[in-house]
């Protein structure tokens, strides 16, 4: 479904992503893991068009997309839930969700999606008319994901959805991610919480210093020595 080939991204003179190649198959949860500064978020920003890669190709459903602006990519079905949520705090929950469906013109589909979002996150229905700035961190993450679902995405890019959340919310968010996959949405997940990422995903790519250093089925990587030593705190 999505393929990056020899992707390179720089900020000025700093090379953040130094030639990575990876694939995401339809219907999978694929996680990109790695330490801070490994290039995970930058990779997502390149896919969603926020930053133009210096070199390499990104192909989505057979079409090259590395030069497309973000709003075109949303139309194609790629939606990026950015790091630290970035909901519109001065707008209401309703307006945030309406913006999520900005590119969707089909009223019927929009109201179905809204029902679906309310189904998985009932709190958003309760807070529908409220300003979203007053929501708690966990509720804001739900709004960020709910907002992304309003466009009817085929591929969801999730950047650190568990960051800064209480454990109970982390579990909720992970459950929702599996549920979305079961509903046919492909997910590319960036996580620092390697344990959660390996448990929930089908395949995992490990990034270090802007390069892919390891790839495998997530279930197998749980027992990989390199991963256990560097990311899972030795022998859990």
């Amino acid at each position: 479904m999505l393929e990056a080939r020899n992707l390179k991204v720089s900020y000025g003179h700093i090379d953040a992503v130094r030639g990575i190649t990876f694939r995401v198959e339809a219907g999978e949860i694929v996680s990109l893991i790695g330490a801070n500064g490994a290039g995970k978020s930058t990779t997502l920003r390149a896919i969603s068009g926020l930053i133009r890669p210096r070199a390499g190709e990104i192909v989505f459903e057979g079409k090259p997309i590395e030069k497309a602006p973000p709003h075109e990519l949303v139309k194609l079905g790629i939606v990026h839930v950015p790091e630290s949520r970035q909901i519109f705090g001065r707008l209401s929950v309703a307006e945030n969700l309406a913006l999520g469906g900005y590119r969707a013109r089909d009223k019927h589909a929009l109201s179905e999606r809204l029902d679906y979002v309310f189904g998985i996150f009932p709190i958003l229905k309760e807070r529908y008319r409220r300003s979203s700035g007053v929501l708690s961190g966990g509720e804001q993450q739900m709004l960020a994901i709910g907002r992304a679902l309003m466009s009817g995405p085929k591929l969801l890019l999730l950047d650190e959805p568990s960051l800064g959340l209480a454990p109970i919310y982390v579990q909720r968010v992970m459950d929702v991610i599996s549920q979305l996959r079961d509903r046919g949405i492909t997910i590319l997940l960036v996580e620092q919480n390697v344990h959660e990422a390996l448990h929930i995903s089908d395949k995992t790519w490990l990034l270090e210093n802007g390069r892919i250093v390891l790839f495998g089925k997530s279930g197998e990587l749980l027992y990989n020595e390199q991963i256990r030593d560097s990311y899972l705190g030795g022998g859990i």
Partner: protein
Amino acid sequence: MDFFAGSLISGLQLGSIYALIAIGYSIVYGILRLINFAHGDLLMVATYGAWILIARGLSLPFAVIGSVLITVAFGLVIERAAYRPLRDAGEEATLITSLAVSIFLQNLFLMVFTPKNRAFALPGFFSEKLVLGGAGSITITNMSIVIFVVTGGLIAAVSLIIKKTRLGIAMRACAENSTAAKLMGVNLNAVVVFAFVVGSALAAVAGVLYSGQYVSFNPSMGFMIGIKAFAAAVIGGIGSFAGAAAGGVLLGVLEILFACYLPEGAGVYQTAFVFLVLIVVLLFKPNGLFGAAEGRRS
């Protein structure tokens, strides 16, 4: 008392024109963090546009509509040619560019129309007076009524557009966090174009009303009005729609009251007193009366 009521009416009238202009400053600033000093000169463009169309024999309403279209076209060309190429160059670069655009427009119109003062020949209807009370001493001209109805209607309409429509919501989202708005599928350029269309159209109407009310105009007329409307936007809290409208009205009322009530000899310094108000407001409320704390910039 009657003198006060009369001054207040004049102040509200001037203030509602400032409000129209200040809204344009504010919505463009909200999205681009651009202080568009050429905004005031669009009033001048609109005034000359209407003046030419009337001279060509168009009736007043059509001349005004034509002038709005001409002004919007100027606004869009300025955005596309001068500001968009500098979108990522920083606030200082676009600020200086907007001053350059302002000087360019003034000089272009000086070349074409000469610095001569011009005036509209408006039908007598506009200067007819209605008696409001005070045994005939409080009166209001039809022109004032037109100004109140038009500015009030436009402010209400634009406020509804920003609150309720898809583009309006996108505009507020871009003002808060343009990166996140892009990720929702919002085309930033489309929103910027929309802001310039609305801002230029409001400036055009304000220009025609101003020149109709205050008689004469020349190619430099936009500068001082533009600066005052900018001050109004800052007093209200730049980036805030309600703040710009309120700041405009407040500034107009104060300006007229200063002119009418300051002691002999000081009244001519009304403009200086207006800017004194700006300084005092900013000392106590640096974000303006209605200003939100500076949002996330990305």
